[in-house]
């Protein structure tokens, strides 16, 4: 669990498969750390934007006041945040423009596509999903506490009973 949670950011060098070189087999290449870090930063931004957008959409698109229907909706958005937290690393890290570490792959010159494998991305997917699991209710709570005191915050004011004290959709 600890490693999964820590997998939200890149640690160490990440290996990649080198293209077939004449006369050389089993050559291992590595992805340049700067490019991996850039990809993870992009992933973090996309994840944060997605979770924030979900929180805002959940509260600000509703037109009534707190009822059981909203609590169900809030749970659905929470679920959507977890799913997005799971999928965003897959998309971002799969398509991020990564670079080969210089000197690896037997000093291969020229450019060729470098990608992380699904096995390498998966721990990050799980990690960001878990962070989404925590971030969505935390952001909901913060917004309803801080912005929700005033009617100008619209949904955060009208639904400030969710997630606290109303979080259980089966309560009524």
């Amino acid at each position: 669990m600890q490693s999964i949670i820590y997998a939200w950011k890149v640690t160490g060098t990440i290996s990649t498969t080198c293209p077939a070189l004449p006369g050389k087999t089993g050559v291992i290449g590595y992805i340049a750390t700067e490019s991996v870090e850039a990809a993870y930063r992009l992933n973090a931004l996309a994840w944060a934007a997605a979770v924030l957008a979900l929180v805002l959409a959940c509260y600000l698109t509703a037109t009534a006041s707190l009822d059981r229907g909203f609590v169900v909706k809030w749970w659905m958005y929470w679920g959507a945040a977890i799913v997005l937290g799971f999928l965003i690393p897959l998309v971002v890290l799969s398509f991020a423009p990564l670079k080969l570490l210089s000197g690896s792959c037997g000093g291969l010159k020229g450019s060729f596509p470098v990608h992380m494998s699904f096995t390498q991305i998966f721990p990050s997917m799980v990690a960001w999903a878990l962070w989404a699991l925590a971030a969505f209710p935390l952001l909901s709570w913060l917004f309803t506490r801080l912005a929700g005191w005033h009617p100008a915050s619209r949904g955060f004011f009208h639904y400030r009973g969710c997630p606290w004290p109303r979080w259980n959709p089966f309560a009524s």
Partner: protein
Amino acid sequence: MSQPNDGSAAAGQTLTFLALGGSGMRAVEPLLHLCALGLGPRQLRLVLIDPDQGNAAVQRATGLIDLYVRTRRALAEGGAVTGYFATEVVDAVGGDRVWSPIADDEHLPDARFATRVDRTLMRGGSEALGNLFDLLYAERVRRMDLGMGFRGVPSIGTVFMNRLREQGFFAQLLSHAQANAGGVFFAVGSIFGGTGSAAFPVVGRALADGVRGAGGGGDIPGVPAHRIGGAVLLPYFTLPAPATPDAPDGGPRPETTLFAQNAAAAMPTYTQGQAGYGALYVLGDALPREQATNEVGGERQQNRAHYVELFSALAALDFAARGGEDPAMPAPQFRATAVAGKEIGWESLPLDEGARRRLMGGIVAAHTVLTLFRPDGHANPALHDELRGVTWLRLLKLGDHTFQERAAALDGLAHFFGRTWSWLSELERSDPGCVLTRWEGKPPSAVRPDELIAGYHLPGRAGERADHVYHVFRHWNETAFRRTETGFPGFLRTLRDGSEAYARARFPVSSHANGAA
């Protein structure tokens, strides 16, 4: 008619309302509903006059008065009668509730008219008087059972109605009028039937004259004419042909064919100012509705609510709001309003925008009570869960058990608003219809808040949104945020002001089908 803009019709006034006969009695119901919804005066003193105390209209009116008083008391125990039910309703007659002009003779076993006037004693020196009596009243009239009212024969009623001047409660009414210079009197009665026609001129005259030597003491002066108003009801219904020409006691039945004739004969009394009134609101209908049954009286005489009765109540509130007529103007001043078309809608109501908003807000509030707090009048065991975390509840600092502790007040509100719902439904289905709503006989739980008011639709997608009670709560939240009052009084204020805010947003003037902006 003019009303102050805050929506309350006559918040600072005392209105003494005299309900005369069946039609007057039926005007009590809309008056109480208007008072419950915050359109009433500060104090409403009720004087109910009808010899037919078993009449369905009397039972209906007295039952509703009891419910109003009970509900208001329960709200007062929670410290909250400043919003809805703000009007204090006082029974001015006393323990008997309804004054009967023939009550003094109730110990007599024989209730026939001739017996009540001691016709058998008109002998000897009084023989001429007896002959005159026989000449004026036909045999079938002389044997009428007066316990069933005066049945379209006002000449009988006037014989007894002057007993009003001898009543203790009437002297108290006059004394109260002397002590409260701002109070006004308003009588409602038909002038085409029996009891109303008999009482209307006598009541006005007695109020204006005052009483001499009351209670063995000095005179009590009358009320100035400009403080006495009345709604004269012209024929607004007809009766179907009866199964038998005579009533069960052999006496006459009210006859539709005589209604217009009776009214025409009575009108000069009022136009010439002989009845003591300073203002007269003349109400009628060009297409009178035929009642379902032709009953002489009693509990079977049940008729649907009629818009003319609502207009009578509105006339009383208008008179109270204006504090009576201008004393400098000659009496009586006649007031009239016209309604175009066959159906009555919101635009036909003689109310200003503030009062109209209050009435619409009251309907929204009643619906909210009858859908969430007491669904269709029944208890809601899930209420606590459904309200958990609701913003207005927290802003008003209402505890978990507030609504359990105030169950009597909520029950009262629900019972009364249930009657309001039934009354508006009756008006809607009446013919001619008073279409303030389009509920089609459905219970509150089957009607959405956005469907409550007839004729107002938001344009575009906003108008397509199907609201529920939590959409109303959005406005309650904002109202509760602005209020400093908390607890149960704060709740009742929020119920009123929040519901009005919803009505303003959902049923704006500009959305009216007729564009009555």
